[in-house]
């Protein structure tokens, strides 16, 4: 489903991804963790090519997205993404935020797009806010709308780039609940997060990154209870203390 092959990425002289090899199967839920600056976000952003790689290759849904001339806008329609800072379209209502891409990108008729949108709004518990503007919602509500927006494109993969990091603590739960719900549907998910509880509950596999390398890949129980790598142990002890 997703495959990284010897991927390297530089920002100028900064080597942010070092020889990444990673395979994620259909329906698999992978949580990527690691200290800040370890390259987690860059890794996930390479999947839908918001970042171009410096070398190596990436396949998503059978398409080599790193090949030159690939119509990325087509590839991206099947990869949903949720951002740390939501990035809802501020000039559109909640409903319009969700229907815009299905109508303009996929060419779905408006009625149908709105039906789909309302379905996902109900699933994230915000049907009542359909005609509100993003600025009228709390952070947690905005992020739930962002998830609905991504799902409405009926993607095959969902990418979550630190979806709860910008939220007040009391709003984190509502967003995680929605993500758990999405996971239950069998969606392929790649999640960059610091929420260890979520990782334990949902992940099939935890990928630990540090300084641009994947240092350890393991099922969550094994990783959290008995990490192999010294640096993983150090990282876990630091964040679990809090």
């Amino acid at each position, binding site marked *: 489903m997703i495959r990284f092959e010897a991927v390297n990425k530089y920002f100028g002289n900064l080597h942010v991804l070092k020889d990444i090899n990673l395979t994620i199967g259909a329906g698999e839920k992978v949580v990527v963790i690691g200290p800040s600056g370890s390259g987690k976000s860059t890794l996930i952003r390479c999947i*839908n090519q*918001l970042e171009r790689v410096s070398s190596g290759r990436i396949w998503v849904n059978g398409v080599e997205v790193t090949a030159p001339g690939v119509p*990325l*806008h*087509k590839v*991206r*329609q099947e*990869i*949903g*993404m949720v*951002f740390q*800072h*939501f*990035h*809802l*379209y*501020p*000039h559109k209502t909640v409903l319009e935020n969700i229907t*815009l*891409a299905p109508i*303009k*990108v*996929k060419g779905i008729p408006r009625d149908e797009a709105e039906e789909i949108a309302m379905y996902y709004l109900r699933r994230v518990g915000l049907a009542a806010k359909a005609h509100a*503007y*993003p*600025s009228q919602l709390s*952070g947690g509500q*905005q992020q739930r709308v962002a998830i609905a*927006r*991504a799902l409405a*494109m009926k993607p095959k993969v969902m*990418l979550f780039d630190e979806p709860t990091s*910008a939220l007040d603590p009391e709003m984190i739960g509502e967003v995680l609940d929605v993500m758990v719900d999405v996971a239950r549907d069998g969606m392929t998910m790649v999640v960059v997060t610091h929420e260890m509880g979520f990782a334990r509950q949902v992940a099939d596999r935890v990928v630990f990154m540090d300084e641009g390398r994947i240092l350890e890949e393991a099922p969550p129980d094994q990783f959290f209870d008995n990490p192999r790598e010294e640096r993983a142990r150090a990282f876990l002890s630091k964040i679990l203390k809090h």
Partner: protein
Amino acid sequence: MFDLEDWLTLLRDWRYFAEGLGQTVKASGLALLLALGIGVVVGVLSVAPWRPVRGLTRVYVEFFQNTPLVVHAFFLYYGLPHLGISLPVLAVGVLALGVYTGAYISEVIRAGIQSIHRGQLEAAYSQGFTYLQAMRYIILPQAFRVVMPPLTNQMVNLIKNSAVLAMIAGDELMYRADGWSSYNFLYRQAYTAVALLYLCLTLPLATVARRLEQRLLGRESREVPL
């Protein structure tokens, strides 16, 4: 400073000035449409992910921002006919003003686009929008709110700059004033009247610009909170 007889002479000939005003409105209006079209297209392309296209927009903007409008007008009016292309003077005016102002407007649009958080473009990309679709549906509608005040200032500039057409027999307000005043030797009256007439066109626009600016400042940012 009132010379009743001379002012009456001016009033007697009001129709002559009114026709000039009409021509100024016509030329400015058409030039404005052209300038807006060019400005939006060039503005969008000037931040596009295609390097050669960005280069071309730079050449256009730098050339027209750094050469006098009157040179463009003279080139089109006196120069082109020698190449076998003789545009009517109104077309010369609209083209010169439109292309010149378009360079300024494209810079305004570019600044507006760049003022929109990069995350908006990424969100659009992640949903499968192409660059141009993202601009059209997501970035430009937001950018327009930001650029309305400077855009209106450019409209005011365009109207003022249309006076250059007087130098190529453009038959607009300034041209009429030039002709009338030196025929009648009544310069003070003619140019006072013309200044007032230009104000009638530009002042409402400038007022709108100021209002928009205040509203923009007054409104809480609708960008993603953070």
